[in-house]
């Protein structure tokens, strides 16, 4: 080890960051359910990324379907076929892309709005901050599904719109979390010191407040993805998804509209639902583990 005197402040900061990331990873490794979630998550992301390798995209086209209508699982179609004769397994693999894509992009939108609103209403004072807080509370109270339905029916049915609808309706939880974090960081001595040294609001916010609330944002993101994927499935099931794409939700919509549960075609209902449950569970478990590691209040015993 070289002596610390020769290190520049930037190097010290980088070392400290690496060390704390390593410590976080160690704590995370020790969290069993978090690791289970992480493994599941990596598996699903790999499937989504490798979809073109795992299944031919031609299998998605109704006109090129090779199987019979609602065939039960066989060697050729491991999970059976849908009402158009397409292989369920192929639909499932390609559907993971849409579900994950919508879930992740909705989360990005939600995080950006939530972090901005939380920081602003926490950092600033007076009427405008109070107004921002009111708006946050309003969005928190308004029931998600009716608002999402109204928005989705107004905006029209496309992949991006469904992500926007979910993002725009799911940020208030994040905003409240960020706000309370900002309020507590704002009172710490090092911020007072920064103010005394003449730091402007922008500097305080980007250099001190934001880095401190970022870990919480990160843990919250993971939990938000879970909710966003669930929401995508529900909106698609109600027929608000992109009609040209196959997602797990739209598969279930199809299954419901052809009455798969009354005709006994369980292979059309069970696999998409199981995938949704596993992915949502994976994100939830990882999110909870991250929260436990990053939030000292929750870190107590076991």
């Amino acid at each position, binding site marked *: 080890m070289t002596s610390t005197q020769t290190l520049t402040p930037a190097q010290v900061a980088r070392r400290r960051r690496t060390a704390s990331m390593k410590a976080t990873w160690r704590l995370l490794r020790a969290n069993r359910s978090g690791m289970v979630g992480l493994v599941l998550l990596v598996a699903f992301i790999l499937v989504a990324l490798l979809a073109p390798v795992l299944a031919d995209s031609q299998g998605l086209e109704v006109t090129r379907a090779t199987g019979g209508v609602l065939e039960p699982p066989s060697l050729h179609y491991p999970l059976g076929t849908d009402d158009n004769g397409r292989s369920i397994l192929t639909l499932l693999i390609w559907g993971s892309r849409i579900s994950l894509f919508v879930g992740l992009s909705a989360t990005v939108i939600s995080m950006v709005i939530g972090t901005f609103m939380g920081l602003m209403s926490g950092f600033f004072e007076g009427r405008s901050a109070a107004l921002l807080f009111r708006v946050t509370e309003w969005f928190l109270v*308004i*029931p998600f599904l*009716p*608002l999402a339905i109204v928005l989705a*029916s107004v905006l029209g049915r496309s992949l991006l719109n469904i992500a926007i609808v979910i993002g725009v309706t799911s940020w208030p939880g994040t905003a409240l979390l960020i706000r309370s974090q900002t*309020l507590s960081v704002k009172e710490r001595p090092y911020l007072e010191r920064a103010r005394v040294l003449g730091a402007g609001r922008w500097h305080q916010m980007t250099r001190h407040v934001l880095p401190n609330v970022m870990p919480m944002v990160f843990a919250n993101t993971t939990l938000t993805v879970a909710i966003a994927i669930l929401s995508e499935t529900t909106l698609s099931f109600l*027929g608000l998804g992109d009609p040209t794409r196959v997602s797990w939700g739209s598969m279930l919509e199809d299954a419901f509209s052809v009455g798969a*549960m009354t005709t006994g075609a369980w292979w059309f209902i069970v696999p998409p639902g199981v995938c949704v449950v596993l992915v*949502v569970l994976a994100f939830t478990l990882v999110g909870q583990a991250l929260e436990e590691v990053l939030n000292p209040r929750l870190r107590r015993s076991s």
Partner: protein
Amino acid sequence: MTTTLVTAPTTSPVGRHRSYGRYLAGKILGAVASLFFVLVVNFFLFRVLPGDPARTLGRGRFSSAAQLAEFRHTYGLDESLPRQFVTFLHNTFTGQLGISLRYRVPVGDLIWERLWPTVMLVGTSTILATLIGVYIGMLGAWNRGGPFDRVSTGVTLTLYSMPEWWLGLLLIAGLAVGIGPLPGLFPTGGLHSTDVDPSSLKGVLDTAWHLTLPVITLTLAYLADYSLVMRSSLLDELGEDYLLTARAKGLRDIAVRRHHAVRNALLPTTTITAINIGFVVSGAITIETVFSIPGLGLLSSEALSIPDYWVLQGAFLVASGAVIVANLGANLLYGLLDPRVRT
């Protein structure tokens, strides 16, 4: 730079507890503002659409310009925006929410008629889910890390990750249609059989039989929320000093739990229950669709495919209004139960 956080402790302990009246007034004012904002959103969302609202609303159902103009006139779309807003407010307050494009009856009547199946379904499920969920959460937290806690946390987390309507589909396939040689035990949908008078005793039992599966589905879906919240709030309480004191006094375990820990841990659960009562109206959209129960939820999801904008607008108004009122109720209740939040 002073904040409320800093100034609060410096006031005298007596003055810190504001009177319940002022707390009440503040909360009511907030609820009224929220309701007004719902109306504003409701109005502008459908009018500030790109393009011509009459065309969007009609979705190509007009063949001639005269028909289009008549449609505009009936719905007041040929007036200026501020005038339209005033008319809209007036109509809303007098209970006229427009005419359904599909049913050709006033939306207000339609919603009123469809409200009761929903209230019955979600009300029953909420009560059951609260009771069972709180109990599970309590047992789990009390024996944290034990076998019951591990199993119940696993099950509730899985239920939490599940789209509730998918669970409904599975229950229909398993219990209403039947698997293999096993016969179905429950009807696959609807609110009552066609040949039974719904007001007779037989009719009531018949309705209960129809509602069993949907109620089970919703109860399982809601239960996860309650038990997870109850578990974590009881875990928070378990670290508190007053519990140690209670034990040191020689109180038995069950007395400590029942009279000290659970009482305090129930506070957050009370709030969630009160808020969820507001979601009664909106919570059942998917479940009613799956089980074809003619409530508000099915009304909304059917209106989606038309799209029947006035019905959607009305349903959104009723759903949000219910949540805002319930939320107000929760706040008032919380203020009564826990004087600390009045500051």
